[in-house]
C-alpha cells in the first residue's frame, strides 16, 4: 500500500462535544497556555501586531525612510483613481483564471491516468520534481527556454516552419506564458493531491461498473468526478488563494512588463513599497487585496460546504 496512514476527514466545523455524564470535567488551563505559548508569541508578534500596523500604515503617508504621517482615507481615494492598481488587479485575475484553469484540468487528467494505470512511486516522485524546485529557478529556466532568439521552444517552432515568438516580451503572450510556466511547476503536485483523493474512492465501485460494461470515460464521469468533488473543491480553494500571490516568477522573468502586462498585484505592492517608498499606499493596496481574497474565500467555502453536503 502506498498510503499507509489514511487520515479520516476531520470533523467539521468543530470537534464533537465530549459526551457529558460519566467523564469527569477537567480544566487544563495552566498547562494549556504553556502548550500554546510559543505559537501565541509567534502569532502576536508576527501576525496580529503587523496586521494592526498594516491597517494603520494604510491610513498614513509613510516613505519607510521617514515617520508615518496620518492622512486619513487619502490612500484609498487615490487607489480608486489609480489605473495602474486596477490594471494590476485585472492582470492578476487574468493570470488566476489561466493558471487555475489549465493547472486543474491537466492535474485532473493526470491523476485519473495514474489512478487507472499505475501505482508507481517513481512516476509520482518524478512528477513532483517541478514542485520542489524554487519558483525562481523555474522562472529562470523557462525564461531561457522561451528566449526569442536562442530559446529551445523557439528552436522547435522554427524547426516546424513557424516564426519565433517573444513569449515573455510580447504584451499579449507574456501573461499566458507565465501562467503556463506555473502550471508546469504545479500540475504534478496538484495531480498527486487529487490522486490521493481518488485512492479514497472504494475500488469495488469501479469493479462492479466494469462488470456492467462501463467504459473508462463513463466511470470517470459517473464515479471518480462526483466522489472526488470535496477534495477537488478543497484543492481549488487552496491553489486559487496561492495563485493570487504570484510574485517570484514575475519578478524573475518580466518584472511586471511589458507595459504592465504582468504587473500582478503582489509586484505592484512590492514596487510601491520598496521601489517608490510609498509604504502607506502599498499597505492600502494590500488591504484591498485582503478584502478581495476574504470575499473569494467566503464564496468558495460556501460552495465547498454545498458540495460536501450532497455526499454525506
Amino acid at each position, binding site marked *: 500500500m502506498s498510503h499507509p496512514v489514511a487520515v479520516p476527514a476531520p470533523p467539521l466545523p468543530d470537534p464533537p462535544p465530549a459526551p457529558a455524564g460519566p467523564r469527569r470535567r477537567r480544566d487544563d488551563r495552566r*498547562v494549556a497556555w504553556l502548550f500554546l505559548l*510559543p505559537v501565541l508569541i509567534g502569532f502576536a508578534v508576527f501576525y496580529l501586531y503587523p496586521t494592526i500596523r498594516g491597517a494603520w500604515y494604510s491610513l498614513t503617508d509613510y516613505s519607510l525612510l521617514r515617520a508615518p504621517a496620518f492622512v486619513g482615507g487619502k490612500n484609498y481615494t487615490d487607489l480608486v483613481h489609480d489605473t495602474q492598481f486596477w490594471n494590476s488587479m485585472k492582470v492578476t485575475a487574468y493570470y488566476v483564471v489561466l493558471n487555475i484553469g489549465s493547472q486543474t484540468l491537466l492535474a485532473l487528467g493526470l491523476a485519473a491516468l495514474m489512478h487507472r494505470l499505475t501505482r508507481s512511486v517513481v512516476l509520482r516522485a518524478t512528477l513532483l520534481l517541478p514542485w520542489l524546485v524554487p519558483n525562481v529557478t523555474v522562472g529562470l529556466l523557462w525564461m531561457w527556454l522561451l528566449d*526569442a532568439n536562442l530559446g529551445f521552444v523557439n528552436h522547435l517552432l522554427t524547426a516546424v516552419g513557424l516564426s519565433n515568438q*517573444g513569449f515573455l516580451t510580447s504584451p499579449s503572450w507574456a501573461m499566458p506564458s507565465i501562467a503556463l510556466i506555473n502550471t508546469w511547476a504545479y500540475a504534478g503536485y496538484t495531480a498527486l493531491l487529487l490522486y490521493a483523493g481518488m485512492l479514497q474512492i472504494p475500488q469495488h465501485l469501479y469493479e462492479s461498473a466494469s462488470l456492467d460494461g462501463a467504459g473508462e470515460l463513463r466511470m470517470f464521469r459517473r464515479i471518480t468526478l462526483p466522489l472526488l468533488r470535496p477534495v477537488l473543491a478543497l484543492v481549488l480553494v487552496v491553489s486559487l488563494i496561492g495563485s493570487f500571490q504570484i510574485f517570484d516568477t514575475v519578478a524573475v522573468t518580466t*518584472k511586471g512588463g511589458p507595459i504592465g502586462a504582468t504587473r500582478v498585484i503582489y509586484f505592484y505592492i512590492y514596487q510601491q*513599497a520598496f521601489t517608490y*517608498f510609498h509604504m502607506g499606499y502599498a499597505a492600502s493596496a494590500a488591504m484591498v487585496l485582503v478584502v478581495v481574497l476574504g470575499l473569494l474565500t467566503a464564496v468558495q467555502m460556501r460552495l465547498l460546504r454545498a458540495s460536501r453536503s450532497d455526499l454525506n
Partner: protein
Amino acid sequence: MLPPRTVVAALAAAALTLPLAACSGSSDDAGAAGGKVTINYWLWDDTQQPAYQGCADAFTKANPDISVKFTQTAWAQYWQNLTTQLAAGSAPDVWTDHASYYPQFVSSNQILDIQPFVDRDRVDLTQYQAGLADLFVKDGKRYGLPKDWDTMALVYNKQLVQDTGGLADLTWNPADGGTFEKAIAAATVDTHGHHGLDPAFDKAHVKVYGFLPEWADGAQGQNGWGDLAVSDGFTFLDKNPWGTHYNYDDPKLSATIAWFKHLIDAGYAPAFDKQSTLSRDAVMESGKGAFTITGSWTIGTYFGDNTKQKYALAPLPTGPAGRKTAINGLSDAIYAGTKHPDQAWAWVKFLGSSACQDIVAQHAVVFPAIRRSTDKALAAHKAAGRDVQVFTDEAAAPGGTFFLPITDHGNEVSQIVQDSIQSVVLGQSSPAPALKKANDQVNGLLK
C-alpha cells in the same frame, strides 16, 4: 511526568537556540577589524568595472586601511535594488549615481551632502567638463563629484552599410525622416536580398534591420527618441534641473515616437514584441542590425578586440532645430547612513581626481569628467586605432548638447513614460493621447 518548568525550558531552547546558532553574528557591512575599513561600492556597467577596480587598487595602495568592495548590478535592476537596500537601511557606502535618478534620494535624505568636504579639501570644480559638477547640486548642497560624461552617436555595421558618403551630415525630421530614414531603408535587407527602398522589399521577412531602436529607455530617450525629439525643438521640462512641469504632451515628441513606429511598420526596425533578451549591441553583433544610436560608454563594446562585426561611428542626424545630443554625467554618491563617511569621502574624492580618472582614461571605456583626462582617453583610443572623435566633437559643438531631465520621482516618471511609449510602438494606443495621459500622471507626481 515532567514539571512545567522543563516544558518552558524545552520551549525556550527550541525557540531560541536554533535561530541564534544559525545566526552568523554581524553582517559584512562593518568590516572594521583592526582599524581596516571596507567601503561597499556599487556600479552597473560590467565593462567599466576593471577600470574602476584599477582605481580601487591604486586607492588602497595609497590608503592601506581602506579597501573597496565592488558590486555590479545590471542597469535594468540597479535602481530597484538600490531603493530596496536603502529601505532596509543597508545600502552601499558609495554608489554610482545618475542625474535623472538621484533627486529622489535627495528628497528622502539618503545622500550625504559633500559640500563641506569639498570646501575643506578645496576640490577644484573647474577641472571638470562644463556643467557636469552643477548637475549634482540642489539648494546649495552637493551630492556628488562628476566621474565621467557621455554623448550619443550613430554606430553602424561597416559591412551592412554600403553608402557611407552622406553619413557625416544626415538630416532628420519626423515627417519624412530625411536622409536618415533613406540611409536606414537602404541598409534594410529582406531574405531575398531586396533592400528597403526596392518596391519588391518584403517587410514580413527581414534579414537585416536598418535600425535597432531602444525601447527600455525610461523617460529620457537618451538612446534615440529623446535626442531626435530635441533636435526637432522638444524640451523635456519647464526648466532643467529642478523643473516642476514635464512636456511629454508636446506634439513634437508624439511626432517623433510616431516616426519610430513608422520604422517598425515599414519593416526597417524590429517589432517591439519580437525582441529577445539580447540587448541591441548583441543583435548588432549577430549581424541583424545596420544602424543604432549608442552612447560613448559602449565604445569598448563596439570597438573592443573580440567583436565579430566591424563598426564605425557617425554623428547624430541634424533635425529642424539642429543636431542635438544628450550629454550626461555620472557621479558617485555617499550614503547618508554610512558608518564610514570619512573613508567614503576619501574614495569619492579619489574617484573624482585625475589620479583615478587618468587610470580610467587608459582603459579607454568612458570619457572621464576631468578635461585633461578626457584628452588622455582620446589619445588612448587613437593609439588603439579607434576613431571616436565624433563623441567629443558633438560635446564641443556650441548648443549641440542638452542635459537629461532632473526632477524628483525619477524612478516613477521613468516607468510611466516608458510604459506609455512602449504602448505606442506596440500599436496599443496612438502617440498624442497616450503621451498626454502619461504627462498628466508625471506632473501629478511633481505637484
